[in-house]
């Protein structure tokens, strides 16, 4: 256990460790150098590792991802920073058509060990395009892995494991947690693609990832006061999904609520509902319920806290699912 640190600091330390561990790791993106990124996640890294390894790129996301593909072919291990979630889309073609397909196109002969870091999600009072949840687009894309960290310790370990992974990883960073709280970093990592039961409970399983995990823990506290014990699962990996952990829990509770900020329809909640219903049909006391962002564009920030999944909406869903 280390001294407590913010998630921002933990990511910064994790990136530093990754760069020390492998000289082929390069960080690239807009303002990641001298500025250390608009969230300071790469703070000090250019100073210590040089401009060749921490690269302030021209302002073009397709270029950032496309050149990362070329660097990977040359044997490098690029870590690309997308400045804000909504700005990953100019780079979407290179991610979906090249990063996700190159290894397969080469019959497994070329690896694409690219990590795309995306500060994601809402709740920071930002303007349009700065609060979106884009994970589902990548989870639906074969060849990509998608993970999200929910606390400093995971952030520290997961970013290192993602960079060390020989497959491309979309690394979702809940930006509103960057400086939210401090926590110590555990001595050993949880496996990158494993979900984690972060609070046991026998009545309802509630699963989320990234920023929603803390919402779920609060909700569990509140529900406990009414005698309802929520089992909280931090999915950690959106793709692949650790179904073993989820199913084990749901088979015990018979009830599942999935929570995410991304719009509800065609989202992660839908996939979990489909799989759990298929694989634990007779264990389900109630349908899988979803507490998510609505099927709208992200709202003006003055309404975001109501729009986002929050304690009240989770508890409403708990009441609803207990009625079955």
């Amino acid at each position: 256990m280390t001294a407590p640190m913010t998630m921002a600091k933990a990511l910064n330390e994790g990136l530093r460790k990754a760069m020390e561990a492998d000289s082929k790791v390069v960080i690239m993106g807009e303002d990641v150098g001298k500025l250390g990124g608009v969230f300071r996640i790469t703070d000090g890294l250019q100073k210590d590792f040089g401009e060749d390894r921490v690269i302030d790129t021209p302002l073009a996301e397709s270029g950032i991802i496309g050149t990362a593909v070329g660097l990977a072919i040359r044997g490098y291990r690029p870590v690309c920073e997308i400045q804000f979630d909504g700005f990953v889309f100019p780079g979407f073609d290179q991610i979906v058509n090249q990063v996700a397909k190159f290894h397969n196109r080469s019959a497994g002969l070329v690896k694409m060990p690219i990590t795309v870091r995306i500060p994601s999600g809402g709740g920071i009072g930002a303007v349009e395009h700065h609060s979106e949840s884009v994970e589902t687009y990548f989870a639906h894309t074969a060849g990509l892995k998608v993970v999200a960290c929910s606390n400093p310790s995971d952030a520290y370990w997961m970013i290192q494991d993602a960079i060390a992974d020989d497959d491309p990883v979309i690394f979702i960073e809940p930006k509103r947690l960057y400086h939210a709280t401090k926590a110590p970093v555990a001595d050993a990592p949880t496996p990158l693609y494993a979900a984690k039961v972060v609070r046991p409970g026998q009545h309802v399983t509630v699963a989320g990832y990234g920023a929603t995990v803390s919402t779920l823990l609060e909700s569990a506290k509140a529900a406990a006061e009414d005698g309802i014990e929520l089992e909280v699962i931090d999915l950690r990996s959106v793709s692949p999904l650790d179904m073993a952990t989820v199913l084990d829990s749901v088979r015990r509770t018979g009830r599942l609520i999935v929570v995410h900020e991304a719009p509800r329809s065609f989202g992660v909640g839908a996939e979990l509902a489909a799989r759990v219903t298929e694989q634990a049909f007779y264990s389900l006391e109630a349908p899988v319920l979803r507490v998510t962002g609505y099927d709208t564009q992200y709202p003006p920030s003055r309404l975001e806290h109501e729009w986002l999944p929050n304690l009240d909406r989770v508890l409403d869903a708990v009441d609803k699912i207990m009625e079955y």
Partner: protein
Amino acid sequence: MTEHVHAVQPEPDMVQLLTPEGQRVEHPDFPLDVSDEQIASLYRDLVLVRRIDTEAIALQRQGELGLWASLLGQEGAQIGAGRALRPHDMAFPTYREHGVAWCRGVDPLTLLGLFRGTNLGGFDPREHNFNLYTIVIGAQTLHAAGYAMGVVRDGAVGTGDPDRDTAVLAFFGDGASSQGDVNEAFVWAGAGNLPVVFLCQNNQWAISEPVERQSRVPLYQRASGFGFPGVRVDGNDVLACYAVTRKALDDARNAQGPTLIEAFTYRMNPHTTNDDPRRYRLGSEAETWKLKDPIERVRAYLTREARLPGDFFDEVEQEARKLAEHVRSGCRTLPDPSPESVFANVQVNMPDELREQRDDFVEFVSAVNA
């Protein structure tokens, strides 16, 4: 931190009609006869938009705005370009063109909703022929090219009728010049001979990145390879920006096709109120640019050359105070968005599934507020 040296220096042939010292100079390609009254009115614009900017920054500090992107130092480029537009021309801004908005007759309060978080823009671009602010870097340049395609199809170019012929003005930044979209807009404009003028405010910085990260040659040179002219103008010289933009817009209206204008200027303030420029540039850089201030040179000209009486400046200052008060009080009373509104405009025709979600949301919000 070592001083950041800009490799890309202003060209000798950079168009300038008013020196930093306030001297009128001539340029063979851009003759300009403007009366002192006109110059005085440009001065007024410059002062007023700077005041809007100052107030907005203050409002952000007070928590009334979530964010603000300051135009400080770029008033000359924006007023010069903005005043060169005709009412029926169309402008496509980024998120920093508050000065252009002013020239189009957009109430500053209309711009604040986005930064206050009460809406995402929320106005009709066609009301003042000024598009909604576009935050995705470069995207609006393609919108401008497409709008220009519409202008051509409407037969509103090259007819010789000044009330009919229409030009489109697309703004973008030095950083944006690297985006695929901007270069695709150049392709469309060049190959299609579209009536669109691209105005790049090269304020030397894309957040923390100096313009050399984007290009090792002056940005105005980008145009020739796409088949249209590029010109660099002193972006802190409102007269030069006015003359150069007017000429380019005339060419566009007359079916002479696109022009790229690089307004060479400087972002005097942080990128936005969130930014901390001390991490990446020295204050001394801003100091040298202060000497080229777009307002001071006009004031110098009006006092020394045009010999305007002091009370003119007092009047402008009075007006600025009124405007500031309008912005301050107006901002605080901007209406919060209704929960319904989040769903009302997802689409023109709302599907049933969304109605249910809307009712759910509206009920929840009222419960919370109850």
